[in-house]
């Protein structure tokens, strides 16, 4: 019960602020609720399909395939592969989290997970085109030239600073339980 409350503290806090705003006669509470509903609709179109696809990924993709391509000993090839995976997908960063977790559980290297998330967030072909139209081609290329090595650096440092043991216990448990159910091996 207390655990459940703790997990819901953020929703509860936002709801209390909203109700407070409404009671004080301000229209902000209603506006806030409307904005949240619009955004929720957007999220619900993306996240459930991604979660289902990742469930299918969990049961169908063989672990050695992931290990080989972006695992511990994948080296430069793994880095390139992580960047490619990140840039190929379109979508908001929160859609990348379930994908990254599935890859990690299949044996991807932590550095490559960081690189994948960074690439997903900030290196995208359509985004570079937009960036050069709205700001300038030189700006877009230069920013890419800085962020690309930067994202790789972030990934490698992330691996050094975040041991696997600091992942949430439930996800760690999943790390193990999955190998038992790993049909594809």
């Amino acid at each position, binding site marked *: 019960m207390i655990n459940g409350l703790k997990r819901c503290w*953020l929703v509860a806090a936002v709801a209390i602020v909203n109700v407070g705003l409404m009671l004080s006669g301000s229209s902000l509470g209603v506006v*806030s609720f409307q904005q*949240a509903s619009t955004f929720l609709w957007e999220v619900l179109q993306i996240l*459930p399909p991604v979660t289902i696809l990742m469930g299918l990924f969990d049961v169908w993709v063989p672990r050695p395939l992931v290990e080989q391509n972006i695992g511990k000993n994948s080296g430069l090839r793994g880095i390139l592969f992580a960047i490619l995976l990140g840039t190929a997908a379109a979508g*908001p960063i929160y859609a990348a*989290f379930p994908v990254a977790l599935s890859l990690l559980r299949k044996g991807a290297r932590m550095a490559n997970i960081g690189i994948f998330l960074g690439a997903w967030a900030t290196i995208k072909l359509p985004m570079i085109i937009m960036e050069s139209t709205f700001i300038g081609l030189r700006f877009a290329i230069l920013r890419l030239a800085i962020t690309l090595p*930067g*994202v790789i650096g972030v990934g490698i440092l*992330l691996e050094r600073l975040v041991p696997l043991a600091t*992942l949430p216990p439930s996800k760690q448990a999943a790390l193990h339980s999955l190998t038992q159910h790993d049909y594809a091996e």
Partner: protein
Amino acid sequence: MRSLSLVLFTLAAIAASWAKDSRRTRHALLISYHSFRALMPNLLGMVGLIGLILAVVPPQTLSQLFSIHGPLGYFVTAAIGVIITIPAPIAYPLAGSLLKMGVSLATLATFITTLTMVGTVTAPMEINYFGKRFTLVRQGLSLALAIAAGAFMGVLLP
């Protein structure tokens, strides 16, 4: 449109998987259901928080904040980028109008990088998947990268 094709693709993937092995597909759907249910509280929290921020800080106020110049303007812009995460199709037109308002290229580089890589509002979700330490380290390093990108741009594109 894009989300419709995502939904259709997912349905096709479920059908194909089911045709091949229904037991395995059921297991996959069970995994998905559990991970989505675990995500729900933080997801709703994130959505509510973004609604609140958008309501309390309307776009007009935001552009007023951006009209501050100099080093203070740089930090204010970076801070806004850190707090909010907005989709690229909205971010670039916004950045374009900021450029017309006289915001420097260095500031814009930091703004765009923090906007996409660092998100205080998406942090609860990231914590849900990867834990506090991962989230803090990744976002901290990304912020450092964004500031470095701004500094480089300031030197190279005066």
